[in-house]
């Protein structure tokens, strides 16, 4: 359980980190919280030549806001994210999804940016970020670019972060007052999601005026359940409406089959969990 040898760099600014990344070349790996990377290194499923540790850059941990957005530094830990008042108030879905990640020890180290950049299809934060139209601030030698969530997740463990680039911040439009819920189904307490559903509803005068729904582990990337969203808009959230809308949950999905669940079982789960999540969100 000992990683292969690597060179270790701990830059103290994002600019230093980008230049370290470019010097180190394509075999370099970025270390955020390390809760996915360290297990992979230990099992020698990866053997990077250089590990660039972002842990020494305080600005990457900042959480702040402006009129429109809540901005979360990529190195904010899950523990910090789930207890942050700005996030609770304006993007509660992120707090709720984060609470379900792994276990307390992992949440003390693991980071929002690290989890999103790792892009495990079973990870909980991608579906929530996608549903909320989060934007990803990515820094490279040419400066900063902003990538919408719909373009960020490209494939299994693959994102829009290019070679020599670093994810520095995730910004979320504010959804103050929205009703949200993250419904997760897994095998045992600390396990990854078999399937999970992220729901955010805007409810005006008893009826749903806007719905945003993301699915975890129903394809190689997080998926937006647009069919369910359309079926909910204009309706009053109740058991019949939720059940009927949830029938659309598998549209556009390509659920994997693995040791945890076969694809058809995942499809069944997606519908059941979507129904539950909509009802729980509507409260």
């Amino acid at each position, binding site marked *: 359980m*000992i990683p292969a040898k690597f060179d270790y760099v701990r830059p103290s600014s994002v600019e230093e980190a980008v230049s370290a990344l470019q010097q180190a070349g394509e075999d370099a790996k970025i270390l955020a919280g390390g809760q996915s990377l360290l*297990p992979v290194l230990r099992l020698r499923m990866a053997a990077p030549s250089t590990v660039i*540790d972002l842990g020494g850059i305080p600005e990457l941990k900042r959480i702040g806001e402006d009129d429109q957005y809540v901005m979360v530094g990529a190195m904010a830990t899950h523990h910090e994210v789930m207890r942050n008042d700005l996030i609770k108030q304006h993007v509660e879905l992120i707090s709720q999804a984060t609470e379900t990640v792994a*276990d*307390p*020890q992992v949440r*003390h180290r693991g980071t929002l940016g690290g989890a999103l950049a790792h892009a495990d299809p079973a990870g909980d934060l991608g579906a929530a970020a996608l549903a909320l139209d989060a934007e990803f601030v990515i820094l490279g030698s040419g400066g900063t670019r902003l990538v919408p969530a719909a373009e960020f997740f490209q494939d299994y463990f693959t994102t829009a972060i290019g070679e020599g680039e670093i994810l520095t911040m995730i910004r979320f439009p504010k959804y103050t007052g929205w009703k949200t819920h993250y419904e997760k189904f897994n095998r045992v307490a600390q396990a990854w999601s078999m399937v999970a559903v992220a729901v955010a509803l805007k409810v005006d005068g008893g009826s749903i005026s806007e719905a945003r729904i993301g699915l975890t582990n129903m394809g190689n990337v997080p998926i937006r359940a647009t069919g369910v969203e359309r079926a909910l808009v204009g309706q009053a959230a109740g058991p019949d409406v939720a059940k009927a809308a949830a029938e659309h949950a598998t549209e556009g999905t390509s659920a994997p089959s693995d040791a945890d669940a076969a694809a058809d079982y995942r499809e069944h789960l997606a519908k059941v969990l979507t129904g539950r999540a909509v009802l729980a969100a509507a409260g």
Partner: protein
Amino acid sequence: MTEVRVTVDGVNYADDVEPRMLLAQYLRETLGKTGTLIGCDTSNCGACTVSLNGQSVKSCSVLAVQADGAEVTTIEGLARDGTLHPVQEAFRECHGLQCGYCTPGMIMAAVDLLGDNPDPTEQEVREGIEGNLCRCTGYQNIVRAVQSAAKTMKPGAAQPTEQAAPVAGGGN
């Protein structure tokens, strides 16, 4: 080699380590703190849990160099002057262990939980130790032990209050 300076159980250390050295290895092999156990290769079991700057972490999933400048408390730093920490005492009292392999990690996770939530419900205890596996499946008494420790550690409880610090800093 990279230099790491760290305080472990109240004692300052400075060592040159390979960057690939895990904190768990550093504690066990360099410092001889074998109270911290390694139980799995997958980060699931939590046997290697220690406190890093006041938060529980799995020391197999942290590099020793990442702990540079940090304060670490291991299971070996909990007891003071031969007196067990209230959580250790509660595990003994409630028979919260069978083979004992998960115990150091369970206790470190429980200490972290009680520091955060001094009066957890049974469900909160179970969630608080979800990062730790007991292969004897002795969870029943582990949960009882944590709840019993919570009672002991409450301000004004019958036990001496100087033991009630959620994480003992070691030393002195």
